[in-house]
């Protein structure tokens, strides 16, 4: 089985802050990491390969530095890695991103399954997986939390819903986006690390994937950012002073009408 896993290098979102006074980003110590959901996508792909044979190709669209997450993916069991990188891709929204990834995957060749994390933690949009499936004209299932079976060219799985889950059958080739519950990702093996070090990563430019310049990067994007700002809070911040008894008395006076 040939599996393609899409991964993204992201700033570690929990460390990103915007100073509400100066509107500048406090970026101190923010690291670039592999998007956590993509780790689960990769792990699932590697497990499927171990059970059913085949090959796992990881693909990432990003600046040259994104090579680091591709090597990390190889150290965790991926076989091949493709970096889709060109300055012309910069500023892509999800629409331009799915176009670009779609063209890159067509160039990679035949596949049975594409697996993505459910969303990236920088944008939190969850739009690239479904949009990419549309570009490739293949069926897809989002929020997959368990793969139960493969039979007759189809995969059976559980999709997480807001009130439970659906049992689903999807014909291959198809695309899945996965949630964290699906597995516990492994840590890199020594052998994997050696392999990752030596591996030559293929790089695809806009020209390599025969991308239409009007569909990629900022100029291909359908949406644009008007402004970014720090979230505003409007707490009254009435601090209740005194001994514990006094604090509790005051609080009860205030909230008694709601209780």
């Amino acid at each position, binding site marked *: 089985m040939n599996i393609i896993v899409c991964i993204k290098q992201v*700033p570690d*979102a929990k460390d990103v*802050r915007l100073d509400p006074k100066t*509107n*500048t*980003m406090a*970026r101190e110590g923010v690291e670039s990491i592999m998007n956590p959901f993509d780790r689960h996508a990769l792990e699932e792909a590697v497990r499927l390969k171990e059970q059913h044979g085949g090959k796992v190709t990881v693909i990432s669209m990003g600046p*040259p*530095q994104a090579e680091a997450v591709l090597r990390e993916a190889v150290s965790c069991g991926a076989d091949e890695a493709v970096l889709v990188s060109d*300055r012309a891709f910069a*500023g892509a929204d999800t629409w331009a991103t*799915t176009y670009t990834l779609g063209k890159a995957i067509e160039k990679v060749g035949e596949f049975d399954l594409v697996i993505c994390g459910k969303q990236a*933690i*920088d*944008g*939190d*949009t969850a739009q690239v*997986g479904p*949009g990419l499936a*549309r*570009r490739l004209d293949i*069926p897809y*299932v*989002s*929020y997959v939390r368990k793969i139960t079976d493969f039979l007759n060219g189809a995969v*059976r799985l559980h999709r997480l*819903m*807001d*009130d*439970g*889950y*659906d*049992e*689903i*059958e*999807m014909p291959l080739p*198809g695309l899945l986006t996965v949630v964290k519950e699906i597995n516990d990702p492994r840590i890199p093996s020594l052998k994997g690390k050696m392999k990752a070090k030596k591996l030559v990563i293929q790089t695809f430019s806009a020209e390599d994937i025969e991308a239409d310049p009007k569909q990629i*990067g900022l*100029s291909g994007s*359908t*949406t*644009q*950012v*008007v*402004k*970014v*700002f*720090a*979230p505003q*809070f409007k*707490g009254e*911040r*009435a*601090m209740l002073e005194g001994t*514990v*008894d006094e604090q*509790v008395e005051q609080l009860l006076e*205030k909230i008694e009408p*709601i*209780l």
Partner: protein
Amino acid sequence: MLKIDIEACIGCGVCVETCTYDAIELIDDVAVVNEKCNLCGSCVDTCEVEALSIEREEKDVQADLAEWSGIMIFAEYRHGKVAPVSFELLGIGRQLGDQQKAPLSAVLLGSGLGDAAKDLIAYGADAVYQVDDPALEYFTDEAYGNILEDVIREQKPEVVLAGATAIGRSFIPLVATSLATGLTADCTELAIRSEDGVLLQTRPAFGGNIMATIECPYTRPQMATVRPRVMKTAPYDANRGGEIINYQPKPERMQSRVKVLKNVLEEQDQVNITEGDIIVSGGRGLDNEKGFDLIKQLADAVGGAVGASRAAVDSQWISYPHQVGQTGKTVNPKLYIACGISGAIQHVVGMQSSETIVAINKDPDAPIFDVATFGIVGDLFEVVPKLIEKIKENRGE
């Protein structure tokens, strides 16, 4: 490309600080952009001397842009009822529609829809396009997506909204990609810019640490998914008039390559925290799993549900369905009591719209106090038992 006017640049370094992607450096006291730049534009606004700009080629505007008018919402119908978020969409949709002096319509798909369309009208829809067909009993991305796409192509609404639910966030990207238009996920604020009718879509990013306002200027419709329990539902008016249209999809558009074999409703192991009037939440300050016993006692005493921060859930002191925040549930009860929760932004975005917020924390600088209506700096293991005692006392127990 990010253009830097080196004559204007004063080398202050604010843009370097602002960039999340580490894409700007100061070289010889002038800002220089490197290949990590993804043109997000956050530096442009912060430059005091206006030395930064993003050059974009003039994009072709969709030829029939002006023909698109009206607001359309997708009404989610599951297990015999309309999801509450659909009525919230009608609430905001009504506001936007009134501003644009344009009609508000809803698309309702499912099997055995009953009077659901009438409810949508009572909550503000002027027209409901419904398809009531056994083939639509289970949600599938393709069938729902194809039909919604076809209705949109025929009706040409300028704005299309859906709930940011498991269903909305899964199939709306398919529809937007098919229509070759922009989509903004998980919006918490929507407004129409009066000059040009462009929808300003505001949403949290980076786990809620940053808010971004997005527009979709060149193509129609402008599409957004909207976070549940953020927008206000319009009042129910059984006498409102509206039209119900039984839409006839082409049979092949109701096909889905993906088959749903079974729908499994999971027993929630507790009260659904998104529906209660009172929530008592615990965080890292509880120290361990046993700490939650105290939270449960207080919740029992006030008749509330138990919530938790991500830190507490990640430590496995309590299960994930209790989690409040960006990666958990969004709640807005009448009263939210946060015990031992520091108030990381990702938690706050999930509870800040609660009517009254009480924070109990031993750290006076904890950010939770910034959203609190009432704050108590103190040891929750002293404060909470006392609170429980007094509540019981007042009730004469």
